[in-house]
């Protein structure tokens, strides 16, 4: 490369009195390549392109050249400028890359450490069960209804076709309160023994057709590994035209298959008795024992999971619904039992003891959105 730079400016001048541009580029290239920090490179850049830089000064010198010379030398200077700029840019890229590499090489992040700065709360497994139930039935046209835990004897028994001194009344180990039913003197209130009370409340206040679902606490005076004085039930009621036992069997089969997430789950319907259903049924699911633990599936053994049936005509009559042209079904199940089967728990009592070790094992993480999303509930 040969550059002819004919102007003064601290650049070397040849014997012929000409600036040897190529020598300048060669020298500056050396000093650029000698830079091993971004800071040094910046110093070189200033010495070339700064206000008093070599090239800046040379450019200024052009003013004194003849037009012809200006043309030739101006081009030579511009060429040199481009070359040097490119060199600087390249060197800067190399240096900043090596700087990053150096920093990265120096760094150390201990990936084995944890940084939990806030506690993580777990939700109770029963909540999960309830959400799954609401999700399932909500998307099938069931609407949610709630009922009180403190009930009258009429709602808990009489209207459900269990008149005074019906043997079933005694079999339920009812908790009675000292508080008296305000509408019936001398009759103590009670803690509901089942969520079937919600059926009564619904049917007394609404006219069919309806599909309803209720969840809640119920109470019975009993305490051992599989009984606690308080537990939870799910209650479903469907009163519509043309609803028969086939629909009952269908929806419960679907529900259990969904809940246990097992398409091959064995489900058995067998006749049973509840005063408020006729015909009545109980539903079992198949399981087998493996090293003492319940494993769902198969039909080696059966475990009862719920009670159901066609609503007894007397119950409809008690709620002023004509059984001649209305029929439907009801079902109820214990949420703890479902949860225990799903989660593999063998003892019911810890559900209500608040032991955080148990909860951290069986509980579940909060989600940003609870499950019961899209349903109609």
């Amino acid at each position, binding site marked *: 490369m040969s550059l002819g730079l004919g102007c003064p400016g601290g650049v070397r001048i040849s014997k012929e009195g000409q600036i040897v541009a190529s020598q300048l580029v060669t020298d500056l290239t050396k000093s650029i390549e000698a830079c091993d920090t971004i800071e040094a490179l910046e110093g070189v850049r200033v010495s070339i392109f700064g206000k008093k830089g070599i090239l800046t000064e040379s450019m200024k010198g052009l003013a004194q050249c003849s037009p012809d010379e200006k043309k030739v030398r101006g081009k030579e200077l511009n060429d040199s400028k481009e070359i040097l700029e490119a060199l600087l840019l390249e060197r800067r890229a190399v240096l900043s890359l090596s700087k990053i590499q150096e920093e990265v090489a120096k760094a150390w992040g201990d990936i084995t450490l944890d940084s939990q700065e806030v506690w993580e709360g777990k939700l109770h497994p029963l*909540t999960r069960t309830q959400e799954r139930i609401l999700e399932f039935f909500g998307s099938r046209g069931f609407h949610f209804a709630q009922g009180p835990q403190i009930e009258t004897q009429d709602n808990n028994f009489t209207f459900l076709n269990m008149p005074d001194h019906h043997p079933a009344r005694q079999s339920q180990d009812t908790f009675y309160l000292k508080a008296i039913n305000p509408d019936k003197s001398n009759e103590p209130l009670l803690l509901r023994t089942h969520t079937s009370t919600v059926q009564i409340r619904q049917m007394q206040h609404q006219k069919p057709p309806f599909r309803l679902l209720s969840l809640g606490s119920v109470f019975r005076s009993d305490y051992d590994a599989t009984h606690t004085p308080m537990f939870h039930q799910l209650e479903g009621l469907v009163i519509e035209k043309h609803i028969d036992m086939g629909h009952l069997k269908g929806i419960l089969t679907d529900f259990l298959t969904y809940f246990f997430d097992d398409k091959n789950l064995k489900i058995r319907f067998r006749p049973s008795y509840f005063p408020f259903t006729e015909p009545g049924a109980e539903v079992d699911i198949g399981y087998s024992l493996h090293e003492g633990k319940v494993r769902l599936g198969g039909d080696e053994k059966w475990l009862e999971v719920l009670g159901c049936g066609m609503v007894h005509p007397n119950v409809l009559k008690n709620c002023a619904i004509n059984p001649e042209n209305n029929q439907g079904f009801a079902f109820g199940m214990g949420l703890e039992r479902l949860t225990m089967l799903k989660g593999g728990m063998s003892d019911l009592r810890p559900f209500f003891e608040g032991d955080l070790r148990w909860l951290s094992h069986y509980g579940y993480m909060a989600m940003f959105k609870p499950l019961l999303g899209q349903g109609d509930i």
Partner: protein
Amino acid sequence: MRFSMSWLKLFLTTTATPEAIAEKLTDLGLEVESMVDEGKEYAPFKVVRVMEVSPHPDADKLNVCGVDQGDGVLLQIVCGAPNVRVGMLAALAPVGVTLPGSTIKMKAAHIRGVESFGMLCSAKELGLGGDGSGILDLDGGTPGQSLGDLDGFSKSVFEVSITPNRADCMGVYGIARDLAAGGLGVLKDLPVGDSEIEAMHTKVGGLRVSVDLGLTPSACPEFRACGMSDVRNGESPEWLKAFLEVAGLEPISALVDITNFISLSFARPMHVYDLDKIKGGLTVRFAAENEIFSALNGKTYQLTPDMVVIADEDSVCSLGGIMGGMDSRCTSETQSILIECALFDATLIGKTGQKLKIISDARSRLERGVDPQSTLFGLSYGVRLIKEICGGSVSFLESYGGVSRAPLVLSWDDEVFVQKTGVSLQEGEGLSILKRLGFIHKGGREIEVPSWRLDVSLLEDLIEEVIRIKGYDSIPLKELGSFSTRESRSEGEAQRKLFHTKHVLAHSGLNEVITYAFIHPKEAALFGDLDERRYLDNPLSPELSVMRPSLLPGLIKVLEKNNTHGIGDVGVFEMGSIFFPREGITEEKSVAGVLRGMANPLNWRGPSRNYDFLDAKERAFKMIRAWDIDERALEIDRSELPSWLHPKESGRIYGKGEKNRGKNLGYFGTLHPQVIQALDLSKREPIACFEINLDRLGRLRNKKDGGSFCPSAFPKVTRDFSFLMNAHKDIGPLLEKIKKVDGSLIEKVIVFDIYQGKNIDSSKKAVAFRVWISSMEKTLTDHEITDLCTRISSVCEQEGLLLRA
């Protein structure tokens, strides 16, 4: 109900295996809880008939026999038993069988040169005891039958759970009837009774028994009594004892055992008195107030006038239909007896049994409903068995009541059956099933309900009978069609919010627990009141006896429980009902949390601190925000704080504005140290807590109005301020005032430091806060910003605060 295969076979002719019977029972609605086949090991043994016996050519004591296994082909067996003879039925252990109690497998063998394909067994070899000197001489069975199916060998014991409606199945005969209807055999006729009783059953007496029930003869609609003399009340025969043992009853004496056997077989309770211990005549009457009854179970009861008793001149001999008396019971010395077979009102029996807390076999049957046509059969069959086992003769028979009621006739309808069950029927199938169950077809659609089916009163009951015999497996799976509810969704919406709340609280580090709705009275007193209406009438224990006025006591127990496991840093919440003594007692939905210990996990990044009342407040408000409630609609203060909260470190949350004025939504704060002391907690450490009434929150009339989104396009600046203020003064109102200096420019004000301690008067605190300033209209000039800051400072100074630095 517990019974054995051989008991069932007294009433049912069947070839079904115990497994098939167990499966069928469950399908019929008679749920088998367990079925143990103790005779299973005999299943591979066979009944054979000895057809040929000839001496062994090489051994004096052995015989070579040909036995028939039912197929007519003779099998050669070498046998050493002296009692083997042609024509006898014997038990064969075929090749491949293992003898009970041994591990040796039967093999085909050459015995002194003669082939033998198995062994004829002695009682001893079958593990049945005895001396083993001869082979077992079977008195029943057919060649080829499995020994395990033979009475005495089949020891299958069923335990069946009988639903309360099936009083008829509280006896083995009723179970046999259902099985026969279900196609597993043929029901035998009821056993024949005593001919003497049958002949004189209409005799109405008055010699030894009278009935005096005043205006309520329905309390005992039928009473039959039979006197017998010269009976010997010894031990029962083996067969009877064996049945009772299967049922789980202790054999007592022949007389008692016989009545128990009849009760267990035919659901027909009876009672036997020692006639010699009865003074004068027996009267069926109502008890006198406080009359004393000393019962067979060794206990003494005080009776009331609504209870039916059978009493002699001196005392009560029996509590009608529930339990006999101690003084008139039969013993081994008993010689003359009075057998009672009666009906009592089911409701009265239930009431009496409940009141006195007596549970007996008789009560459980009579209160469910005993076949009203069964008194004569019971008495007659009882007398027959007593005569057979104890001897004796009938001395008198007396009967009262027993007016027969018209049988119930229902109308069967195939169409309704299909409509209810979704299962179609063949022509006449429904009627045929009902007939197999003992229902009587009166012609057309008319069906007469048998006397023992007191549970059947509607067409729906008949439908259940038919579908359970047909089998629930026959019901098709159908899908519910689409349905759109006409109901309002508000309850569902409320429910969704409740679940959302749980997730929000769990996100904020709290664990969800569920505790019992009833607590100890001491806790209720500390966290509310001890109104009588809160009490359970029949609590399990004092700890679970009072309906809770607050969720906090249960949650505090959870803290303590975890503390015993070495978990001291606990944040928990619960959502549940709390109760108030209004209109009887009412319940409201609540959510509460308690927090104790470190507010964040031990962490290498920085120091940990303990939970305090502001952590509780933060959770409470986070949850409220999740309900889409505008926080600006809420007010907090320290007024009307409940007694269990620290009066200085707690706040009440209530609604602002006309509609919500004074509506308490809940509280947050620290538990009052006195409460911590009163509860005698393991630690004196402060407990932060909150409790929000969700019913009231749901009724709050201040839903958030989003407005429109219009962010400022101009730069934002911040300025920090630091003040000294009275340590016992809230900062909140000051922040509100500062915001009001210029609502359009001040975006937010946040406290970022509070300092008390060194270099500061102990009655003061240094507060530093940052103000975010921006305008919707322009970039603010330095001058405008300085001016705003001066106005902020002067507001602070007006409040009597000192600008610090």
